[in-house]
C-alpha cells in the first residue's frame, strides 16, 4: 500500500467522516487515493485553505470530534496558519496534514517548499515531519491521540510527496503510549476534599465556567453541580452554554465587556472556583485587583495554567468532567441566601440594555433571533462588536453551541466556522453573525454553501466601520477614525446573489421582526444584510488593564 493510501486508511481507522481539503501538487497522490478509496469520507473543499481550516475548527468545536484538514505544501500550508493559531488559542482539536516537497528536495528552496514544522512550532500542540514511510501510520495515530486528548489542540503532520508514493505494509496501531505525554484525568481526592471544605465555609462563593467545561463535555456535570448547590455562576466567552435551572443564579459573561452583575460578583465574592479557565487578560483586567476579596480554587487539565496569570489558593489538575463528577458525589451544604439576594438585586438594578431608536440596534436583532431560532441552534460569530453583542445578549443554553474566536480574535472566522458547523450538524440550525469588516475576510467561502447543499443562516451587521477599533478610537484617540472607515463596502445582497444564496436587505426596525422570522423559517441558506445604527457601541466596557469595577457604561 502506498503512503497516500495509508493516510486514507488511517483516517478511516480513526473514524473520521469529514475531511476539509484543498488539493495541490504535493498532495495529488492523497487526492488520488481519496478518489479511489475515499468511501465514507465526506470531502469538503473550501475556496481558500484558511477558510478550510476555520471550517474544520467549527466542525470540531460543534461536534467534539477532531477536525481534519489536508492541504498542499508551501502556500497551501501557510494559508492554514491563521486557522491553526486560532484553534491553538482556543484549544480546538485539529489534525492538519500538509503535503511537503519530496524528502530529497527538502532544504533546497524547491518549488512550493516551506518549513512547515518550523512555522507551526509555536502554534501547535505537536508537529511531525514524516521522513520514513515506516513511521507514517504510527505518526497519524499519535497525531489524533495528542490532538484530541488532555487539553486539545491542533497537530500538524508534514508528509513529503515521495513518502506518499512509497509502498509499505499498512499496520495501524490500536494505541500509542507516549512516555512524555500522559494527561491526567481525575483530580487529586485530597484537593477535591479541601475544595469542598472551602466551599462549605464560604459566604460568597462564585463559579466561573470556562472553555474547558465545553471541551470536556462537562456542561451537564456543571449544571448538576450548580442546581445542587445553588452557587451563582458566571462564564467566560469560551464557557458559553452553562445553564442552571434558576435564572437568578446565572450572571452571564465576565471580563472587559462582561455584564455589570457578573463583574460585580467577581469583585465581591469571597471564594471563586474557576473551572477550565485560563484567566486571559480580557477576563481579568488588572491582575492585581481581580477578585481581590476571594480565595481561588482553580480546576484545569493543563498544569501550566495554574498560577500562570492569577495565583491560586487551591489547584486541582484534571478534566472538568471527572472532577465535577467527584464534586457531585460529595455532600455540600451551604447557606448563601444573603449573597444570592445581593446578586439578584444587583442584576435587577443593573441589567444589560440599549436605547430604542429609529435605527436598528444590533441587540434588537439578537433578541429577535433568539425568539425565532430553535433553542439548540449553533450560534457562530465573527470578531469585534458583533461577537460581544451576541455574547452578552444571546442566551445560549447548550454546550458547543457558541462558536467564536476567543483567544486569537480572528476576523474572518465566522463564515467558514459556520460552514464547518453546518457540515457537522445537519440536524441543527446554524446562525452566523458577522460585521461588515470580518465577513469580507473570508467571503469567498459563500461559494461552497450551495455546492455542498448546506444550510447556513447569516446576519451581516453593517455599520460601515471596523466598529470595535472605532470604539477604542472614540475612547482613547479623540475620534480620529484612522483605518476604520469601511466606505465602498460591497452590496452584500448582490454578493450573496452571485453565489446563488437568498438574501435580503434590512434597515427599517419595523420590518426586522418579519425578516428575522423569515430567516429562521427559511428552508435554505439565507443572508440578511442589516444597516445598523453606526454609532452603537459595546457597553459596558472595562478599559484594558483596569479593574473589573472600573467600568464604563457610556463612552
Amino acid at each position, binding site marked *: 500500500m502506498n503512503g497516500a493510501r495509508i493516510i486514507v486508511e488511517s483516517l478511516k481507522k480513526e473514524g473520521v467522516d469529514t475531511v476539509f481539503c484543498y488539493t495541490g501538487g504535493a498532495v495529488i497522490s492523497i487526492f488520488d487515493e481519496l478518489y479511489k478509496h475515499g468511501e465514507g469520507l465526506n470531502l469538503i473543499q473550501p475556496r481558500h485553505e484558511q477558510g478550510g481550516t476555520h471550517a474544520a475548527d467549527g466542525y470540531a468545536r460543534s461536534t467534539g470530534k477532531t477536525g481534519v484538514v489536508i492541504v498542499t505544501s508551501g502556500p497551501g500550508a501557510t494559508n492554514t496558519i491563521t486557522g491553526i493559531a486560532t484553534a491553538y488559542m482556543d484549544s480546538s482539536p485539529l489534525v492538519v496534514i500538509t503535503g511537503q516537497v519530496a524528502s530529497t528536495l527538502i532544504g533546497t528552496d524547491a518549488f512550493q517548499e516551506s518549513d512547515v514544522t518550523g512555522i507551526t512550532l509555536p502554534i501547535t500542540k505537536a508537529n511531525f515531519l514524516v*521522513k520514513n514511510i515506516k513511521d507514517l501510520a504510527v505518526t497519524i495515530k499519535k497525531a489524533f491521540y495528542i490532538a484530541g486528548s488532555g487539553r486539545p489542540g491542533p497537530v500538524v503532520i508534514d508528509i513529503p510527496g515521495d513518502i506518499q508514493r512509497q509502498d509499505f505494509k499498512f499496520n495501524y496501531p490500536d494505541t500509542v503510549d507516549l512516555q*512524555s505525554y500522559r494527561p491526567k484525568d481525575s483530580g487529586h481526592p485530597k484537593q477535591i476534599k479541601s475544595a469542598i471544605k472551602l466551599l462549605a465555609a464560604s459566604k460568597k462563593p462564585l463559579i466561573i465556567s470556562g472553555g474547558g467545561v465545553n471541551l470536556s463535555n462537562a456542561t451537564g456535570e456543571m449544571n448538576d453541580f450548580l442546581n445542587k448547590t445553588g452557587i451563582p455562576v458566571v462564564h467566560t466567552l469560551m464557557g458559553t452554554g452553562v445553564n442552571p435551572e434558576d435564572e437568578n443564579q446565572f450572571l452571564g459573561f465576565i471580563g472587559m465587556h462582561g455584564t455589570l452583575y457578573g463583574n460585580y460578583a467577581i469583585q465581591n465574592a469571597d471564594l471563586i472556583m474557576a473551572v477550565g479557565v485560563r484567566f486571559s487578560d480580557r477576563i481579568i483586567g488588572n491582575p492585581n485587583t481581580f477578585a481581590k476579596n476571594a480565595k481561588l480554587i482553580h480546576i484545569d487539565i493543563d*498544569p501550566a495554567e495554574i498560577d500562570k496569570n492569577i495565583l491560586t489558593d487551591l489547584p486541582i489538575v484534571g478534566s472538568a468532567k471527572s472532577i465535577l463528577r467527584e464534586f457531585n458525589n460529595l455532600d455540600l451544604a451551604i447557606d448563601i441566601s444573603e449573597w444570592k439576594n445581593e446578586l439578584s438585586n444587583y442584576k435587577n438594578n443593573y441589567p444589560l440594555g440599549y436605547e430604542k431608536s429609529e435605527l436598528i440596534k444590533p441587540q434588537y436583532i439578537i433578541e429577535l433571533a433568539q425568539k425565532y431560532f430553535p433553542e439548540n441552534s449553533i450560534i457562530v460569530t465573527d470578531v469585534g462588536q458583533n461577537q460581544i453583542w451576541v455574547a452578552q445578549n444571546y442566551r445560549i443554553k447548550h454546550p458547543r453551541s457558541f462558536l467564536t474566536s476567543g483567544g486569537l480574535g480572528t476576523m474572518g472566522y465566522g463564515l467558514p466556522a459556520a460552514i464547518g458547523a453546518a457540515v457537522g450538524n445537519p440536524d441543527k440550525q446554524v446562525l452566523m453573525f458577522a460585521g461588515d469588516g470580518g465577513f469580507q475576510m473570508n467571503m469567498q467561502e459563500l461559494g461552497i454553501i450551495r455546492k455542498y447543499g448546506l444550510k447556513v443562516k447569516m446576519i451581516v451587521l453593517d455599520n460601515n466601520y471596523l466598529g470595535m477599533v472605532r470604539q477604542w478610537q472614540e475612547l482613547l484617540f479623540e475620534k480620529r477614525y484612522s483605518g476604520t472607515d469601511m466606505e465602498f463596502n460591497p452590496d452584500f445582497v448582490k454578493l450573496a446573489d452571485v453565489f446563488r444564496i437568498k438574501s435580503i436587505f434590512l434597515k427599517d426596525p419595523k420590518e426586522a421582526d418579519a425578516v428575522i422570522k423569515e430567516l429562521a423559517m427559511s428552508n435554505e441558506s439565507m443572508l440578511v444584510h442589516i444597516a445598523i445604527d453606526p454609532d452603537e457601541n459595546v457597553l459596558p466596557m472595562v478599559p484594558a488593564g483596569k479593574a473589573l469595577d472600573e467600568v464604563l457604561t457610556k463612552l
Partner: protein
Amino acid sequence: MTDEVFTDHIVSVLVHNNPGVLSKVTSLVTRRGFNIDGISAGPTRQNDMFRLTIVVKGDDKSLEQIQKQLYKIIDVVKVVPIIRSRMVGREICLIKVKAIGAERHEVLQIINVFKANIVDVGTNGFIVEITGDSDKIDSFLALLESHQITDVARTGIVAMNRWERTFKETGR
C-alpha cells in the same frame, strides 16, 4: 537578600532525541520571555534520549512556569531544576592565547596554578583547556586578560544536583 528580580536559573531537561527537539525547547523558552544564557546538549545512556542543560534568566515564579511549559512539549520527558546550593556544575573552555618570549613563562605559571592543560603549542602561543565551574573559568580568563587572548570557546555549563544536601537550602 537581594533586590535583583532576575537571577540565573539552571534547568536540566531530558528529551527524546526527535528531529527539531532542540529548536522546540529553545523556541519555547524564548517565546515565553526568557533569555537563554547558555545551553548544552549531549546523549545519555539511553539511546534515544538527550540531556539539555539550560541557563535562563528569570524570577522564581517564572522558573516554575517555564518548567510547566517545557512539560507541554511532547518530547520532553523530565525537567529538573538545578538548585544552586546543591549544584555540581562544570564547563570546559578552550582559550587561544598569544605567548611569545618572556610572556610564555608567565602564561605557563597561570596555567599551572589553575591546573589547566595545554592542548596545542605554537610558536606564537598556546591553546589552553580548562575545566571547572563558571567562576573558576571567569577568574582564569580575567588573569589571562593582560595577555593577548585571540579566541575563546566555552561549552556552557553541564550540571547535576548532589546526592546529599550539603548546604542549608532554607532562608533567603
